């Protein structure tokens, strides 16, 4: 099952293009990292998925429906915006009551239990809370409506390491409990490696890398060998070279593979998610996208 499908998706604000020709499939039940530099279109993509914007080109479907203007669908989507919008003068209890009044499905008990577990006092005003607590309150509001899809825009950006861990702990427990599909954007790749199973890299308004993280890591490696004069060395098992670093004596290549590397001249090392993402971002022309056919097969399995 596929939770989110974008096909030729594009969005422009006046003359400025925020997203162009984006195609991807996000499987149900996955935790997807949406990664890219500032201004790459991450927020726009999440706003389109949340139904808060209508695309200017192409289509996006969420749970096989079109999110903009589909109120029933929107009630199944939880969205936490980047600036964690809450009413500062409300108490935590009033904020939860607000969530209860504004949503069709609402689990007040669950939301209250979450606050108790995190020791966030219900009678405290929101503006008196720490950044980490505010993030937890907005997460509780998004989860209180029992969404099938949870979209988090840069949830970790303003949190200290401990608050980050606490936040992701709640998100991951939710993922373990239900069949929820989660998409979270970030530019901190290292934070995402242990929580996400799928990856979408956006750069300059386009999708650059889409896939299951394990498959992507298995399909790339770093080759280290003696300095190589040829600009595009022909090595059996290498589909394309993503990044190349030369020193006088050594050449190291981050490559996408299509078979085992048996050439004894090259020592093959595994690649980390962070290195992989940074290598692609440094070379916007390179892509690792599934073919359209492969994409629909992947979602069927």
């Amino acid at each position, binding site marked *: 099952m596929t939770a989110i499908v974008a096909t030729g998706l594009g969005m422009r604000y006046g003359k400025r293009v925020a997203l162009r020709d984006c195609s991807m499939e996000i499987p149900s039940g*996955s935790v997807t990292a949406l990664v890219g530099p500032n201004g790459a279109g991450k927020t726009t993509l999440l706003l389109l998925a949340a139904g808060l914007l209508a695309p200017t080109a192409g289509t996006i479907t969420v749970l096989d429906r079109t999110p903009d203007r589909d109120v029933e669908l929107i009630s199944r989507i939880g969205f936490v915006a980047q600036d964690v919008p809450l009413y500062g003068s409300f108490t935590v209890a009033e904020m939860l009551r607000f969530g209860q009044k504004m949503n069709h499905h609402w689990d007040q008990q669950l939301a209250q239990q979450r606050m108790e577990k995190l020791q966030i006092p219900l009678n405290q005003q929101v503006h008196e809370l720490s950044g980490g607590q505010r993030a937890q309150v907005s997460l509780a509001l998004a989860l209180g409506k029992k969404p099938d899809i949870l979209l988090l825009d840069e949830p970790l950006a303003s949190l200290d390491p401990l608050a980050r861990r606490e936040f992701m*702990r709640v998100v*991951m*427990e939710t993922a*373990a409990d239900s069949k929820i599909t989660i998409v979270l954007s970030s530019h901190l790749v*290292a934070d995402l*490696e*242990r929580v996400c199973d799928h990856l979408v890299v956006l750069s300059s308004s386009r999708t650059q890398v889409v896939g299951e993280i394990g498959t992507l890591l298995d399909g790339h490696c770093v080759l280290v060998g003696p300095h190589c004069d040829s600009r595009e060395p022909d090595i059996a098992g290498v589909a394309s070279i993503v990044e190349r670093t030369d020193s006088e004596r050594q050449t190291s290549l981050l490559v996408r593979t299509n078979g085992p590397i048996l050439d004894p001249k090259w020592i093959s090392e*595994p690649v980390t998610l962070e290195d992989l993402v940074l290598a692609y971002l440094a070379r916007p022309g390179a892509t690792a996208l599934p073919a359209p056919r492969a994409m629909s097969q992947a979602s069927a399995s």
Partner: protein
Amino acid sequence: MIHFRLNAQSGVATYVQLVHQVRHALRSGLLEPGDQLPTVKEVVGSLAINPNTVLKAYRELEHAGLVEGRPGMGTFVLRSLEGPPPDKQAALRKSLQRWLQSALEAGLSPDAVLAFVDAAIRDVTEDSVA
């Protein structure tokens, strides 16, 4: 009950680290047949990692016949792992010493030997995991 921990710097995939820790606990007797592994939610709650990673590790242990998932109850240890018998261990140690001697004679420094061993372990374990 065992507690998992993760080494982010090791470069070893998270699910592989979990598998290794269970195997180690089985070998050392910390886990015995009938013992329950932490539930997916417990592991996720303590390590803040993706639940699919835990499921993948448990599936792998299940494939190896070491544990069994019982629907609605949890994952239980089926059998323990015994290390090789003492005489076998002594023989392995002997052959390693012989190899080390020849490596040192060939001019490899102890550091270089360690790098060799690291690379070889990675090659071999990756093959067995894949």
